[in-house]
């Protein structure tokens, strides 16, 4: 075999393997989606979406959990987005690789890998008890905000790095200050990347159960959250609760709950993608 044909064979092998791996993961995903859909679609109706939780499987609904998830996510995004972007702008544009900045950098990378239950314990200690916020939407959102923060910071930094130096230099040449340059040139240019990071962070936050159970999120609640200080429950807790019950009818509810969670997640991502495309077009 000549070396050329050997290289071509190697190329083919890699290609085949890549396709195989891709197919495998797609098949697994499809199987999961099909399984959940076939278990849950019968329970999916307006009554399911607008009813309170219940100990009777056929009456149970996810209304407070759906609203709870949305409320918590809003607080999470409200905290993680400005803090995360601010931190990333500092590290990337001002921090300048000093010893302190490097220390912060290493810590952020480590934080991204901390198990979520640890954030739950932190949230219980600080937000619920020291700050006295109780097991509220605010405590839950702040806990998940901390959990999402490292992801937002890391992806925002990546996005800031993609903005070409020439854009900054051009801005300076026209007499803009550093802040004007960041606000009018760097951040808008990096926005699509920042949004992608935000999607990833929020997608992780919306599926979390353990930290919210730890801070005392509820499982049964017959009213919807009235504000950020209200007690709450979220979709993953409701699903977890149904999955742990002995009666098979609850497994159907759980599957239907998973579908709702998936739809919520996908529509959230869709909104972010649309926004990202609009910003990209506006810049082009």
């Amino acid at each position, binding site marked *: 075999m000549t070396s050329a044909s050997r290289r071509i064979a190697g190329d083919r092998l890699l290609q085949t393997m890549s396709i195989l791996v891709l197919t495998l993961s797609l098949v697994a995903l499809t199987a999961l989606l099909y399984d959940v859909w076939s278990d849950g679609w019968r329970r999916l109706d307006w009554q399911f979406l607008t009813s309170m939780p219940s*100990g009777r499987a056929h009456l149970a609904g996810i209304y407070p959990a759906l609203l709870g998830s949305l409320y918590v996510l809003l607080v999470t995004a409200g905290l993680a987005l400005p803090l995360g972007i601010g931190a990333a702008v500092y590290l990337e544009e001002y921090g300048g690789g000093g010893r302190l900045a490097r220390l912060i950098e290493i810590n952020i990378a480590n934080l991204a890998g901390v198990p979520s239950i640890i954030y739950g314990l932190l949230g219980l200690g600080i937000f619920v008890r020291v700050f006295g916020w109780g097991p509220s939407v*605010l405590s839950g959102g702040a806990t998940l905000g901390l959990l999402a923060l490292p992801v937002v910071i890391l992806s925002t930094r990546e996005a800031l790095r993609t903005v070409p130096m020439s854009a900054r230099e051009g801005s300076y040449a026209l007499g803009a200050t550093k802040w004007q340059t960041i606000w009018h040139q760097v951040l808008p240019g990096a926005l699509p990347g920042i949004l992608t990071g935000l999607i990833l962070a929020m997608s992780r936050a919306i599926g979390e159960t353990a930290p919210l*159970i730890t801070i*005392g999120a*509820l499982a*049964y*609640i017959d009213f919807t959250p009235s504000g*950020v200080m209200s007690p709450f429950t979220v979709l993953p807790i409701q699903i977890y609760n149904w999955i742990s*019950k002995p009666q098979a009818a609850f497994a159907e509810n759980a599957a239907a709950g998973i579908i709702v969670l998936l739809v919520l997640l996908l529509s959230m991502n869709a909104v972010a993608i649309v926004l990202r495309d609009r910003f990209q077009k506006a810049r082009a």
Partner: protein
Amino acid sequence: MRLLSVALLLPAVVAAACGGGNEQASSSTPAAVIAIDGSSTVYPISEAIAEDFGKTDGAAPVTVAFTGTGGGFKKFCRGETVVSDASRPISASELEACGQASIGFVELPVAYDGLAVVVNPKNTWATSMTVAELKKLWAPEAQGKVMQWSQIRAGWPDKNINLYGAGTDSGTFDYFTEATVGTAKKSRGDYTSSENDNVLVQGVSGDEYALGYMGLAYYEENRGRLTLLGIDDENPANGAGPIQPSFDVVRNGTYRPLSRPLFIYLSINALAARPEVQKFADFYLNNAAAISKEVGYVSLTDAELALVKARLAARTTGTMFADHAAQSQKSLTELLQGRQ
């Protein structure tokens, strides 16, 4: 850039909102809500009762969470909840924590739960086990040593035994270890553990050489996939030979030692100060029998329920289980009568 400006303003809004909420949050729960937390085993009963209570006229809102028996008591003894669900009696250290915070409580049994020891339907050799055999199998010393069925009883196959049991945070774990090994929380660690009994059902039903324990309700819902073992406590006084668990033997006390009462603990301060808590407690006991059957547990007998109601009416505080060794041999009726 409008989006970014809005995003940067949000923390100010959030901060303002929590500033406004701080006064009512200082008591941790809004005064009107009846907050329940604790055992995930008792959760289905409290959930269904909270739901029915919510349909009565002028009912206060009720919230229920399931942090686990231990986690529930931690919150209860800090005054963060009004009712604590428990699948075992309060422990000495929890009593101390409550005492230090001057949180008094009324201890009310509300139902029975049986623990089922189950094997795979393909298992043809095992039909029953003695408590001594369970102890030999589950004791911490067994870890890495008692690995085969033949080591438990002569004549059983030389096959590896695969164990499934409750997660260490659950009251089920505390209760099973105390009833078999003799000390709560002392167990071998080399088994598949889950807080979710359905995971254990999956495990045992797919594994010919498996053995596991779980709430009786989970066996009842999965009859075709599991085989139940009879349990022999070798004490003829409460039924000779192995006893096959069923709702009847759990209630009449012959399925020893793997049947247990489930409890709610009510804060005496809340009971005294808040009429809606008293109303809820009465509602709970009046409906406990019907609801516990509905969610798959075993209801107390009418006589026992009458004693529990009397205990609530008298607002008898403290636990019936302070002297653990002596009380484990007594029936619930004897315990309830002893304190009246």
